């Protein structure tokens, strides 16, 4: 087998390994779908961050701010529709959720543009300053969210048609988790298409490898980076909506909590690699759900163990980006 395809086996391997440990097929199916849903949401959030790092070597610890902001904007837009969302059909619910997510992505994308200009741009090439100032930016964003919407946890109820489960055999599969898997897959496929079939995608892939050469070919990598940063922030906003609905409540600190997971994912995947980010996110989602069921006390640091094991195998992550 091609060495490049080896990491792809990890996801089914982890799922199959968990089957005898979980014991019951219906419970395993429920946990696997939950893990895939969580993984897909994390992928949506982390995919922008890994490209941001890959393209400009920028460590954005403030990425979590866009997750929280996306969730709060969605909550604000959903609030007046609460009654309709509770009773609408599945198709009508999706039709109402489209403007909700678009609003969250538009706001986080716009704030991302300002974040890049004001916070990131002055610290290009200075990792320590990037870490400090982006973490500071996230703290400021959290406090602004508290000032606008209050410090308390806010429930974000699932629309009526997304509540409950589908019974497949004896396995109960939550409807929302299936939807999250579908959205995550759609984002992944759209990203693959953009990266592999468009010139902008080619430029991003080339820029992740050797940005100096991309500039020498006549392309402005900074302009490209701003575009990727805005798109990455908007995806984090979308991820925030999905995560908020997944948890069914939101807090200003939710982004900071997810931040840890997304950094684990992009390190596991190989900094700058979209395919690695996808595999890493699915592994993290599955691992969190299986260990949460099998050994709740281990669940908190199970993904750190996973990251350690993968880095011992491949020190630069599952898909190291060449020339870095």
């Amino acid at each position, binding site marked *: 087998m091609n060495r490049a395809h080896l990491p792809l086996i990890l996801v089914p391997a982890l799922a199959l390994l968990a089957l005898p440990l979980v014991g019951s097929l219906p419970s395993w199916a429920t946990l696997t779908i939950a893990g895939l849903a969580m993984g897909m949401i994390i992928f949506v959030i982390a995919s922008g961050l890994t490209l941001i790092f890959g393209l400009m070597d920028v460590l954005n610890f403030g990425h979590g701010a866009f997750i929280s902001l996306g969730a709060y904007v969605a909550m604000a837009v959903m609030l007046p529709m609460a009654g309709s969302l509770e009773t609408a059909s599945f198709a009508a619910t999706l039709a109402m959720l489209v403007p909700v997510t678009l609003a969250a992505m538009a706001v986080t994308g716009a704030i991302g543009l300002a974040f890049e200009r004001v916070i990131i741009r002055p610290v290009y090439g200075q990792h320590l300053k990037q870490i400090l100032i982006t973490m500071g930016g996230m703290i400021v964003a959290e406090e602004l969210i508290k000032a606008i919407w209050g410090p308390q946890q806010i429930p974000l109820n699932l629309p009526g048609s997304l509540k409950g489960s589908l019974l497949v055999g004896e396995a109960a599969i939550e409807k929302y988790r299936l939807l999250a898997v579908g959205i995550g897959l759609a984002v992944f496929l759209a990203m693959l298409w953009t990266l592999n079939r468009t*010139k902008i995608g080619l430029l991003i892939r080339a820029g992740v490898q*050797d940005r100096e050469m991309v*500039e*020498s*070919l006549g392309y402005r990598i900074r302009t490209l980076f701003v575009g990727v940063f805005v798109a990455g922030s908007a995806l984090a906003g979308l991820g925030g909506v999905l995560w908020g609905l997944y948890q069914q409540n939101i807090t200003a600190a939710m982004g900071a909590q997810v931040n840890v997971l997304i950094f684990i994912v992009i390190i596991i995947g190989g900094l700058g690699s979209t395919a690695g980010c996808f595999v890493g996110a699915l592994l993290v989602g599955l691992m969190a759900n299986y260990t949460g069921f099998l050994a709740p006390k281990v669940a908190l640091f199970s993904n750190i163990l996973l990251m350690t094991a993968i880095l011992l195998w491949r020190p630069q992550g599952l898909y190291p980006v060449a020339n870095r």
Partner: protein
Amino acid sequence: MSDALLSLEGVETHIGRYHILHGVDFAVPKGELTMLLGRNGAGKTTTLRTIMGLWRASAGRVRFEGADIAALPTPAIAASGIAYVPENMGIFTDLTVAENMTLAARGAKRLADIDTARLEWIFGLFPALRKFWGSRAGVLSGGQKQMLAVARAIVEPRKLLLIDEPTKGLAPAIIGHMMDAFRELKRSGATILLVEQNFNFARALGDGVAVMDDGRIVHRGRMRELAEDEALQTRLLGLSLAAHQ
């Protein structure tokens, strides 16, 4: 020089606290292949990178078609018609050969937009590229990567090619192939500034020559004159071309 396409006038370059180029002056005439020679560490690569704006000139002028481009950003310098092949070739190894070429063709939104006749001409120069067209550039041999690097620089007509050590680490047979390709490029009227350590390659191809030492131009003239003067070669380069026969 009135027909100079590119000229450097008193160019100084600092990298961090190191002063690398000290008042570099030379010109690249239009339609000629100018060799930039010198020992390791003489400042040849720094000169090319300074022309491309990858390292900023701290003083002096870099004139291209009469306009000073020293303060322009690299993408603008490239867009003005200068193609650059760096010493490490700058190949995007995760991309296919076709994708590398598509990126280099700024006017092409997709592969199909590349001028087919020009592509055939390039395949004539470097047949291996046709064979590996859909393969990842990372699987190419060193010589094939160098061919791709040069092919990328000429995928669209450019006014000036800056090429850094195209024969570095290549087998003699591949160097011969590369020499043929450069002869064809010269016949096409291309203007080239070529950094080289292989003296035979330089002698066979060069029209003009500039020799650098310790960040300065220590000789300017015609390649033919340098090739015939062993004493001058020994003084400027530390050894004669005859020693490389």
